[in-house]
């Protein structure tokens, strides 16, 4: 076994490991608390002092997906015995289910707007990135800086004219409006990232294809795109995460029809007061996709969050 002076000693490794694990446990605690709250009953969620040990229940999840009203005795009589397990849970709280809640709709909106804007962004972004990478585009550096700088503006500041513009165009509170907006906001990130990925693909591949009689477009389509697939996939996930988590534009520009989940989750209320278990359940369901993506993205994380400025 060769001894390397730059390889840290065993003791140092242990100390470092323990410190990092401690930090990780502290940092994950609030998240675990959110997830745990989703499985508490209403009174347990606001127990004073807080409860660490509790009897788990699906109340929060049932409340998240249903609208309920407090039951009067003749309503209960009229409704008869509960037929499903979730009705039973609602009855145990002294309520009857009146219908499905808005959460499903809002979640679906997040999916439509998130995936829609990501798809559009990938199409436009890949094309633009390819052009910037391979051709002499006039004023290239200025254009690239311009694209990046659009991300520096506070969303609230640009929201005023966008609000006015959308209102005149009838795009307020529509899926299309939000897709276009998120696409524009994400384009800067995706062009920068994708340009980096495409720069890494040797030009020789395309040149060979062109010599073989491919047109430029075929070369792009059949040679470059497959090579850039990993880069495109990870860029897409970054765009999706942004659109998924975005709040400021969503809260100002959407309401009834196109509202996404982030502005909706904090406003979930129960039959009286805030229904914390339902809020926590909503947050948990909403967080799961992002956590999965984080795990998938591990390798590309750094590049994505720094606009491609740092590569590991």
């Amino acid at each position, binding site marked *: 076994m060769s001894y390397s002076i730059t390889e840290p000693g065993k003791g140092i490794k242990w100390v470092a490991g323990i410190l990092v694990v401690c930090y990780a446990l502290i940092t994950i605690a609030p998240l675990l608390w959110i997830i745990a709250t989703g499985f508490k009953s209403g*009174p347990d969620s*606001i*127990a*004073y*002092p807080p409860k660490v040990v509790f009897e788990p229940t699906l109340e929060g999840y049932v409340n998240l997906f249903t*609208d*309920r*009203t*407090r039951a*009067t005795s003749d*309503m209960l009589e009229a409704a008869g015995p509960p037929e499903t397990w979730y009705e039973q849970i609602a009855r145990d709280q*002294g309520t*009857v289910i*009146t*219908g499905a809640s808005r959460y499903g709709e809002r979640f679906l909106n997040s999916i439509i707007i998130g995936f829609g804007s990501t798809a559009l962004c990938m199409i436009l972004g890949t094309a633009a990135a390819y052009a910037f990478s391979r051709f002499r585009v006039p004023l290239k550096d200025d254009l690239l800086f311009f694209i990046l700088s659009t991300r520096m503006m506070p969303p609230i500041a640009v929201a005023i004219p966008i609000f006015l513009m959308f*209102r005149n165009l009838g795009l307020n509170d529509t899926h299309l409006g939000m897709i276009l907006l998120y696409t524009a906001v994400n384009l800067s990130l995706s062009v920068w990232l994708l340009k980096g990925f495409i720069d890494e693909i040797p030009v020789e591949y395309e040149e060979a294809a062109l010599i073989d009689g491919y047109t430029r477009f075929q070369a792009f389509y059949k040679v470059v795109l497959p090579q850039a697939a990993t880069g495109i996939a990870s860029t897409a996930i970054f765009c999706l995460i942004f659109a998924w988590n975005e709040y400021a534009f969503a809260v100002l520009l959407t*309401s*009834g029809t196109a509202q996404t989940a982030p502005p909706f989750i904090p*406003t979930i*209320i129960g*039959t*009286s*007061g*805030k229904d*914390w278990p339902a809020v926590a359940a909503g947050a948990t369901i909403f967080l799961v996709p992002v956590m999965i993506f984080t795990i998938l993205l591990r390798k590309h994380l750094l590049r994505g969050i720094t606009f491609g400025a740092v590569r590991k």
Partner: protein
Amino acid sequence: MKTKHLTTAVLSSLIASSAATSALAEDLTLCWAAWDPANALVELSKNFEAESGHTMNFEFVPWTSFADRMLNELNSGGQLCDLMIGDSQWIGGGAENGHYVKLNDFFEANGIDMADFIPATVTGYAEWPKNTPNYYALPAFGDVVGWTYRKDWFERPELQEAFKAKYGRELGVPSSLEELKEIAQFFQGRDIDGTTVYGAAIYTERGSEGITMGVTNALYNYGFMYENPDKPYDLEGYVNSDGAVAALEFYKDLYDTATPPGSSNWYMGENIDAYKSGQVALQMNFAFIWPGVEADPNVGGGKSGYFPNPAGPAGQFAQLGGQGISVVAYSDKQDAALEYIQWFAQPEIQAKWWELGGYSALRAVVEDPGFAQSQPYAQTFLDSMAIVKDFWAEPAYADLLLAMQERVHNYVVAGDGTAKEALDGLVRDWTEVFEDEGKI
């Protein structure tokens, strides 16, 4: 070619049939805040759907964004809502800007008489200008700020003795705001069954209307007035009168000495949480929460009592809440919307409404001999509805509210300046708004 004809025929018959049905059965949308009574209204409306054949849709917006969202909808002439259960203070704007349909003719034609409703709700929810017989809404949900207290704690002998030793009177429902403060201070930090409890949960919220809806309960009772009763929009000396200053100082003192730590941004929901989890002995809240308190496993079933906002040196008033139901002028289904109001005004529907937890404003319901005994809080509701006052209902109400929220919150919660400075500032802000509006 043939197929093309066929499709056209099918299409046109489809269009025709859908047009025919839509003339009979409309798809109505009712807009209101997202809260417990709204869920009860959904249940109640099933009866309307069955009777009329119309379909009811509901758009419920959380309280904190209700005004923002709905006023925006009305101001932009949106067609989302056919029926609007708008907050009482919107009535001025709704009437003057033509958002709401004037209902006088409709009431007359259908025998709906405003004299059948609690007078305060008619003035508060339906009339514009106030105290004139011009109606833009039907009182839909009576609501008022009142107090909930832990009767089970108040009845404990050891606490009663300790209270008497300290204040020389019995521990019970306070007869004045000053007494209320003493009771809250008595409970503040007290150990009950092994946990530390606090005095009162009061409104302090900054973002929407919270602290204004709370502090006015003190202001009114110490002599604050919105304007010179003889000269409209004359504010100086009324908004910032000595009584008003004393009231604001009272509210700050209550906040500083008798509320749970961290209650700096609390409104309806947070107060309910604090009360239900056993943190506080008293809570200020709108009456709509009382059915929920009664049904709660921890504090319901006789453990809680209710009382109207106690008197102050200048009288006894309580902040009005609640809403009237209006027909939105931009709706193209106004006839069906009016049908809904007609259905809703029927005494038997109103009685059912009360039973489901909706505070009916119909006198036939609340003056029924059995009403006061029907629920433990029914009498308190009646007493409170008799002493209500409301915030400005001017078209510029949103601007007036924002100014008050900021001035009062910054003094009470953040301790900026003095009460006098806060109210002087409020006079300046409000004067500016009225000047902007061309009222002065």
